[in-house]
């Protein structure tokens, strides 16, 4: 009570504190009152019960099973021999509830001691307890839409980040790798995209802690960004839940609009002896496909043809004999394969070592990982060393504490690899093949616009060293039966130091620069504190009730320091202190979030369920009047299979209908001070500091809000051997956080505002089946099919962005160009569609020519076991999406590309003489053929890909037992083995504009996904 009085003083100060105080005092009151009730209980001994708990099928005793007498709070657990005993005030007979993770809970009436309890293992995933926001629920009684991905499903995929591993694994989840560079960003969307300028990435929560997925990369590589999600070792993951509908995500309020990926890491179990797991695999990757460029001779022929087509004199054609001052005849040209020089067979190595176990009070998990993956394009690589410790300690029946900590060190070797002239792929691919690689004096030649690819690989220093600590400590106090209080304190400390140096042999560093280098230090620190009070109660075994209330406080700080040095004495010096001139910059920014949330669930007899939740969030990013956002949701479910009339049908082992509706918010991804009218510094002139207006104020700026309706049905047949889950969702996002273009006559191009609306609607179908389930042979199949219809419902003005347009009535990721109807057989000119019929081509004839959204996407997995062998075959697919092939555009538009860009084999199909029917126009550098961008570079990007095949063998237990080894699995696997597609580029899974979230399916000079073969083993002791 002392505390409460102390609080009164603050009470009058701020309304926010008022809420907090009310909250904290009510918790204290609750705790105090419960203590009184505990103290008042009087002891009575009426019976003593002994027993043993074992597995009903194997007969093995179960350690740590929980035994509770119904209607009391008194529980006991089995010891390391599976035995229990307790003394109670209850008189025989009474009802005993025996539960153990992975087994069906047994409810039995006992009328004497001892008892022998045999638990049946859970048969299928529908029985699983799954993790949801701030709690756990039983999948059977779930009212919301949640997809689960188990660790086993993704263990053989050799990807650095768990986000990439999720591709095709869950319905409603669209995942596409942007590049082949390991540890770089992944395009991931849960049920479509609902934002333009705020983030579209899901929220990641590891063991209840928000994980920041803001990239710390500040030195550009030309489009791609490092992914903070690659900091999580997939080997530590037990399971992942993807929360999709509003009922599941509204408890995350302002951060839930893009779905939530909940990650549960491995933990030790009480009363379990230490289990040591060791795993290793080695893989080798190479490119699936290369670009078909012209030979030197073909280049010569085509460039001469362009010259003549443009009216050039024959005797001055570029590829004429050297004696006449030309480049030599076409047939004299060499063909230099630069592309071959940058690719490699890239190794991947992964080591995982973990120990898990526990005694009666303490459980532990220690996991270490070392992952090293090189990219197929030299010299990129990603290395991760991580260490995780998860500890739990049960002080007594009431108090439990725990700590989780993940320490990660990452190393990336990078190159400007994407869309920049000094990039490796640009230099190798775009430089015409007849041009020399080295000058006569042996120095690197740069005969076109682009960097010499060998120089880019050998001379560039570009590395990023990341250090990350994600730690969480919690205390849990069981106040009375069913009432629990939990407080949790977390830190996510993420730091990256990037060093880049271009010496004088490189394009960017050559004389008179004499070397340029930048060192950047970025740090993102998130501190989170959470309190959670939960109450669980079951009345008469038919009324199930759960209540959860809590709060979260979060503070995020972002710091950047960067120094650039120019002019180095020799190439041996690369440290900035050796440079002739140095410039530096440093900045810091903060944001805060204060939240309160609650949830009530009620279930009647496992048949009718209703959930309601609400979260209130206050963000520092918005003006005072719009600071608070409220996000409610409600969900209902009806398990028809529990009704007698359905049971009589004898058809369904499970039949559940569920529906939910609710709203979530989004504020991620916008600048910390987007609502304020600001001026910034650094606008200097002649080394004197200057200031300029930076942005206009929008005091009305507030949350982006997404409402979502979800309708679902779950069916199980033949004792749940076959399961069908079908969901329909309708998401509608309003008050879109938009960098709204305004008239530039005001001196500003945009203002952050809430304007615009976007909808996403779709179906998700997931089928699971144990097609064959015999002892020696089994076949499990799972398939998921998802659709998403995205539409910008309202946008004040269209927004043009390179080849894409965002406009009302069309989906995001729409491509915009002039439509090519064909090539005039008479003169070889492109025939463009004249939309407005004015007989002239102008911007008015631009149109939307397609979008990057697939009609259908998903995955198909098959798991076979035969004796000790297992085989996994996993496909993922994307059908109906378009790709803007800008590589082909750059290498095949505008005649001969002036000898600056190499050309692709397509160009050989060009129109040459009247009567030719082709889609490649007459080669010319003049007129519409060269200046207007036609839609022939938009392609069907549909594909079906055999993503992984793996075959494993478990060594027979009999042999292993002698050596005290419990399990050994050896396996071989292949990734990206086959791809079925009509796409002309090297890979339909591509997105060059990884750093621009409003562009998808844009292909420009990106290497294909790697095809990887790997071999590995797992040993458990």
């Amino acid at each position, binding site marked *: 009570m002392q505390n409460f009085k102390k609080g009164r003083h603050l009470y009058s100060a701020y309304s926010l504190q008022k809420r907090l105080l009310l909250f904290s005092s009510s918790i204290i009151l609750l705790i105090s009152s419960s203590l009184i009730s505990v103290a008042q209980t009087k002891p009575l001994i009426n019976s003593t019960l002994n027993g043993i708990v074992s597995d009903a099928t194997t007969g093995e005793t179960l350690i740590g099973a929980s035994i509770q007498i119904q209607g009391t709070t008194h529980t006991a657990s089995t010891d390391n021999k599976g035995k229990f005993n307790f003394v109670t005030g209850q008189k025989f007979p009474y009802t005993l509830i025996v539960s153990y993770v992975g087994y069906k809970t047994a409810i039995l009436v006992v009328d004497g001691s001892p008892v022998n309890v045999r638990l049946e293992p859970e048969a299928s995933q529908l029985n699983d307890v799954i993790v949801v926001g701030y709690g756990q629920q039983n999948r059977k009684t779930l009212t919301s839409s949640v997809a689960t991905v188990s660790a086993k499903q993704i263990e053989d995929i050799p990807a650095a980040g768990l986000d990439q591993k999720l591709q095709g694994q869950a319905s409603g989840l669209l995942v596409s790798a942007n590049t082949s560079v390991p540890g770089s960003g992944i395009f991931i969307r849960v049920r479509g995209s609902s934002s333009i300028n705020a983030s579209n990435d899901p929220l990641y929560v590891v063991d209840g802690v928000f994980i920041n997925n803001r990239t710390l990369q500040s030195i550009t590589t030309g489009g791609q960004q490092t992914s903070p999600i690659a900091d999580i070792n997939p080997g530590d993951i037990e399971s992942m839940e993807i929360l999709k509908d509003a009922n599941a995500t509204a408890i995350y309020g302002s951060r839930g609009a893009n779905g939530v990926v909940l990650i549960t890491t491995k933990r030790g179990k009480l009363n379990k002896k230490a289990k040591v797991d060791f795993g290793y695999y080695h893989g080798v990757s190479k490119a699936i496909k290369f670009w078909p460029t012209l030979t030197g001779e073909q280049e010569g022929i085509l460039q001469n043809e362009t010259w003549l087509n443009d009216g050039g004199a024959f005797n001055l054609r570029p590829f004429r004999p050297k004696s006449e001052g030309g480049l030599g005849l076409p047939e004299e040209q060499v063909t230099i394969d630069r592309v071959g020089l940058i690719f490699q067979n890239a190794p991947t190595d992964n080591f995982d070592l973990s120990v898990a176990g526990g005694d009666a009070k303490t459980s532990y998990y220690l996991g270490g990982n070392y992952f090293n993956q090189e990219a197929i394009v030299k010299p990129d690589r990603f290395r991760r060393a991580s260490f995780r410790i998860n500890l739990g300690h049960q002080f007594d029946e009431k108090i439990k504490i725990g700590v989780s900590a993940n320490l990660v060190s990452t190393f990336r070797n990078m190159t400007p690899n994407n869309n920049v002239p000094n990039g490796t792929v640009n230099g190798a691919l775009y430089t015409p093949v007849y041009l020399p690689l080295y000058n006569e004096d042996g120095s690197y030649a740069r005969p076109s616009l682009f960097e010499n690819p060998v120089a880019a690989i050998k001379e560039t220093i570009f590395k990023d060293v990341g250090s990350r600590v994600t730690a969480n400590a919690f205390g849990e106090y069981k106040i009375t039966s069913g009432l629990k209080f939990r407080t949790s304190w977390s830190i996510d400390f993420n730091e990256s130091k990037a060093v880049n140096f271009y010496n004088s042999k490189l394009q960017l560093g050559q004389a008179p620069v004499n070397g340029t280098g930048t060192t950047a230090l970025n740090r993102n620190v998130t501190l989170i504190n959470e309190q959670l009070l939960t109450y669980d109660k079951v009345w008469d075994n038919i009324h199930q009730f759960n209540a959860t209330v809590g709060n979260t406080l979060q503070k995020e700080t972002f710091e950047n320091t960067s120094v650039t040095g120019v002019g180095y004495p020799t190439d041996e010096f690369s440290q900035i202190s050796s440079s002739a001139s140095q410039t530096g910059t440093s900045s810091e920014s903060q944001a805060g979030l204060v939240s309160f949330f609650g949830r009530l669930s009620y279930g009647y007899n496992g048949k009718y369920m209703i959930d309601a939740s609400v979260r209130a969030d206050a963000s520092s990013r918005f003006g005072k009047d719009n600071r608070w956002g409220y996000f409610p949701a409600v969900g209902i479910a009806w398990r028809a299979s529990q009704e007698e009339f359905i049971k009589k049908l004898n058809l369904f082992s499970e039949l559940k209908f569920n529906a939910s509706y609710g709203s979530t918010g989004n504020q991620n991804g916008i600048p910390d001070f987007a609502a304020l009218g600001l001026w910034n510094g650094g606008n200097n002139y002649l080394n004197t500091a200057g200031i*300029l207006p930076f942005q206009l104020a929008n005091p009305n700026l507030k949350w982006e809000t997404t409402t979502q309706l979800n309708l679902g049905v779950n069916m199980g047949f033949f004792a749940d051997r076959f399961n069908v889950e079908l969901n329909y969702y309708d998401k509608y996002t309003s008050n879109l956080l938009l960098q709204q273009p305004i008239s530039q006559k*005001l001196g500003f191009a945009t203002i952050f505002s809430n304007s615009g609306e976007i909808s996403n609607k779709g179906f998700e179908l997931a089928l699971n089946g144990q097609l064959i389930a015999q002892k020696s042979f089994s076949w499990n199949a799972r398939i998921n099919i998802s659709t998403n219809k995205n539409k910008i419902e309202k946008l004040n003005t269209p927004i043009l962005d390179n080849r894409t347009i965002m406009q009302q009535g069309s989906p995001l990721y729409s491509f915009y160009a002039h439509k090519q109807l064909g090539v005039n057989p008479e003169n070889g000119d492109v025939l463009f569609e004249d939309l407005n019929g004015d007989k002239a081509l102008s911007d008015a004839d631009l149109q939307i020519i397609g979008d990057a959204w697939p009609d259908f996407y998903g995955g198909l997995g098959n798991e076979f076991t035969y004796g000790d062998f297992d085989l996994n075959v996993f496909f993922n697919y994307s059908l109906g999406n378009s790709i803007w092939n800008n590589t082909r555009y750059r290498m095949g538009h505008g005649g001969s590309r002036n000898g600056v860009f190499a050309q692709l084999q397509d160009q050989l199909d060009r129109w040459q003489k009247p009567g030719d029917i082709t889609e490649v126009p007459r080669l010319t550098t003049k007129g519409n053929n060269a200046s207007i961008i036609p839609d022939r570079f938009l392609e069907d990007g549909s594909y079906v890909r055999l993503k992984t095949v793996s075959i494993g063998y478990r060594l027979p237990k009999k042999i292993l037992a002698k050596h005290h080894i419990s399990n050994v699995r050896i396996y071989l696997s292949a990734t990206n083995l086959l791809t079925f597609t009509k796409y002309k580029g090297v890979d339909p899974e591509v997105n060059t504009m990884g750093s621009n979230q409003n562009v998808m399916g844009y292909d420009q000079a990106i290497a294909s996904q790697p095809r990887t073969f790997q071999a590995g083993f797992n040993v458990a002791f």
Partner: protein
Amino acid sequence: MWHFKINYNIMNLKKIQKYTIVLAIPLLLIASSCKDLLDPKPLLYVSEDNSIVNKKSAEAAVIGAYNALSQNSYQGNTFRYIVNLASDNLRWVGNSPSNREFDVHDVFATNTSVSSLWGALYSTINISNNIIDKVPKVEDQTYSQSERNVAVGEAHFIRALAYFDLVRLWANVPIITERTRSPNSGDGIGNSGPIAVYQQISDDLDVAQSLLPLNPSAINRNRASIYAVYALKARLFLYLKNWGKAADYADLVIKEASKFTLVKPYAQFFNAKNTTESIFEIDYTINNKNSFAGNWFASNITGGTKELLPTDDLIALLRGPYGGDRKALLLDINTPPKGIITYGNMNFKISTGENQVYVLRIAEQYLIRAEAYAELEKPDDAVADIRTVRLRANAADNDLNGLTDKEIIIAKVLQERRLELAYESHRWFDLIRRGLAEQVLGITDPDKLLYPIPRQELLVDPALKQNPGYK
């Protein structure tokens, strides 16, 4: 057992209360820090209200205005290459179709360079408007009236320069003279015709002339001075065909011979910075670079993009008898395997980005006066001015002997301007104001002499109208 348990609980009661306190204390700590959590300070910025509040911040804002003027999307790069490409001095050999549009005089309203230049011009105008509005109201006793006059005078000059470039490129543009307070500040302000825009420029220059020190003891050639105002006025009246005033203002600058001279040799004015040639020169440092030079050379020389090359026409003239020392604007480089390529050059320093931009220089004033004299039927004075510029470059001048025909003299002035100011963004406008653009550049559609208002602007601003001939 039970007894023990209960005792255990009682024994632990105090302990548990302790836990409760331990749990509650942090909650209270949090409560008191909540305000901090929701009101972090924007460390990188100052609020609009704290922007121009004293002498120091006012002067920083003026520096900001020069920064806006010097940015790459305006004087630093875009403006210069757009205008040079449109003329017959440079040709586009790069690959971007959108830059080719300037070369072939068919500019689309979606052209990104047009739109970024438009934006840069108006952000330059907005900072000027802020200075003009706020500086006189600043409450700072250490900030003298004469210091304030200089700041406001410079802002008026910078604003005039931006409107001058706007009216030359688009002719019909919105005139904004109030600082932007909200997204609705400019509601309803549509395009004004060229007469109104020229009036605005003239007014701004009058104010600048009245505020800037009349006889400055020293000239900072990187900032606007009274002479920069005179020089820009001379150019303004040349465009307005007010020949008398054009000659008078050019005269005001030329007669300050101790301050402004034609330096020798010709290349000296760009090989060194801030020579007496310059009236207003925007300068760059390693910390504040421009990217203009990067467009000129091939990558094997200094990491350029080789997108601009001088036309054969210009090369021939510069190497001819009337080019003289001005052939220094050309650079032959052996570019294997293609052999010798002639590049344009003004001591370009691609990698450091420190090339100066010449906004106003004395040679132009001679040629403005020459053209005005010719129009005012003073052929001898006109020829004398042309000859002065020619001889500085050691070029032949015998063709000028005995010239009296106005049209021939004017043609000589135009050719002289073309060579003397080759890469300084004058040629395109000279051809247009003299009505020669269609004939010389082979433009068939006269609407193409103006640029389109960026498409995005028309989409967001119902008050704006597109220029004729654009959709």
